[in-house]
């Protein structure tokens, strides 16, 4: 473990974690909304917003999958020191971090069970761009409709079709983040 792994956490953990959580709550409760989250400085390739999510939600009870280029020593060390989350394969993961193409096939991830739909994975997708344009979103949390640049439509439509089962997603780009819960109906336009 390098000294860099010890840096980049919250300076004031209780307050910054609360602020980070409120951001996560707002974006997941209002799909299409894009917020900036700050306070974390994780090593590349993890962005600042995804780093905040990790610090707010991960601990030793949340198995994490790092996909593709995210599975690097710097990030492993940083998560080990700041979160203590065990690293696992995609099938056992409660949280997964990576680029969309590296997370594929997303059918690998847990979608919960009919009795416990909450036992589903949360994907944190590192996107090259994140804008309130593109795919049309409807559903809980959305007044009328919203737009969000999604990496793909078909996978999210298939995910919604399994509701109440399915994975939930956060889309991040640097310090910006948006939420896409399984309840959102996605349409191409």
């Amino acid at each position, binding site marked *: 473990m390098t000294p860099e792994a010890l840096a980049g956490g919250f300076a004031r953990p209780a*307050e910054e974690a609360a602020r980070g959580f409120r951001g996560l*709550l707002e974006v997941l409760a209002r799909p299409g909304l894009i917020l900036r989250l700050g306070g974390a400085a994780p090593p590349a390739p993890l962005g600042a917003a995804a780093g905040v999510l990790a610090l707010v939600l991960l601990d030793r009870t949340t198995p994490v999958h790092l996909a593709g280029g995210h599975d690097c020593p710097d990030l492993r060390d940083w998560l080990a020191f700041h979160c203590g989350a065990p690293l696992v394969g995609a099938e056992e993961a409660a949280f997964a971090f990576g680029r969309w193409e590296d997370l594929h096939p997303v059918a690998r991830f847990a979608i919960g069970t009919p009795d416990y739909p909450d036992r589903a994975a949360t994907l944190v997708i590192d996107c090259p761009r994140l804008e309130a344009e593109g795919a049309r979103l409807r559903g809980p949390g959305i007044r009328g409709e919203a737009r969000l640049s999604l990496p793909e439509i078909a996978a999210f439509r298939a995910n919604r079709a399994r509701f109440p089962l399915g994975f939930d997603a956060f889309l991040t780009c640097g310090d910006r983040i948006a939420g896409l819960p399984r309840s959102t109906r996605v349409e191409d336009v």
Partner: protein
Amino acid sequence: MTGPGYNFAYLDEGTKRMIRRAILKGIAVPGYQVPFSAREMPMPYGWGTGGVQVTAACLLPEDRLKVIDQGADDTTNAVSIRRFFERTAHVATTTSTTAATVIQTRHRIPEHPLREGQILVFQVPIPEPLRFLEPRETETRRMHSLEEYGLMHVKLYEDIARHGTIATSYAYPVRVEGRYVMDPSPIPKFDNPRLSDCAAIQLFGAGREQRIYALPPHTQVVSLDFEDHPFDPGKAPHDCDLCGAVDSYLDEVITDDRGGRMFVCSDTDHCTCRRAAGHSGRLAAPLPAGRA
């Protein structure tokens, strides 16, 4: 730091992480009860331990917290929870619905419409709407997974058969986005229409039963009913005796032992604001100086 011995908002960060994960899953599956590992709180079960834990996981230092108990800001439960967070989180508190950013409530939804950016936290005693029809958790869980809600309609039908109308007047069951049947906590059915298409985030915490559930903003929430017996939110056939409101939920107050009574708004902030604005009811006395 927020004083000797306590983390910000009382709970330790590990507990908050666990509660925050449960809240997010609740948001993702509106109306589904997410199990969580509720902690013992320094207040008895039934006094809002679930709501307090949800509030603690949400609070920011700059929040303005309002706590109501049956609509009132000045009853024991509301006062003690407000003081709890004044002490452990040093947040500002308020009695104003419009000024509050987080509102913890027992058994009411404020009369004033909530806005985007606000969070309404409900205290829930029994989160399972099917519990009094089927005591086994394994069975109610299966009923939810199979969308098997016939038993609930039988219960409402039996109300009609016996009383001629649906007699359930509080904790009236609702269907969320056409999927989960949910207990809205023991709010009067008068408040049920406010659950639907609400601009605020609504979170429900049941401490003893260890469940959290949620309604994102603008979620469709429908009170269960029948085509020939449509849902009726009900309204006492009176106006508020203090502020004259014709459309608020009322408490009946016995004023003597000779049958005297008055009806007053259950939402004390709503009533106070209306009186301050010059509205006046049948028994209204002028407001004491400085109260407005």
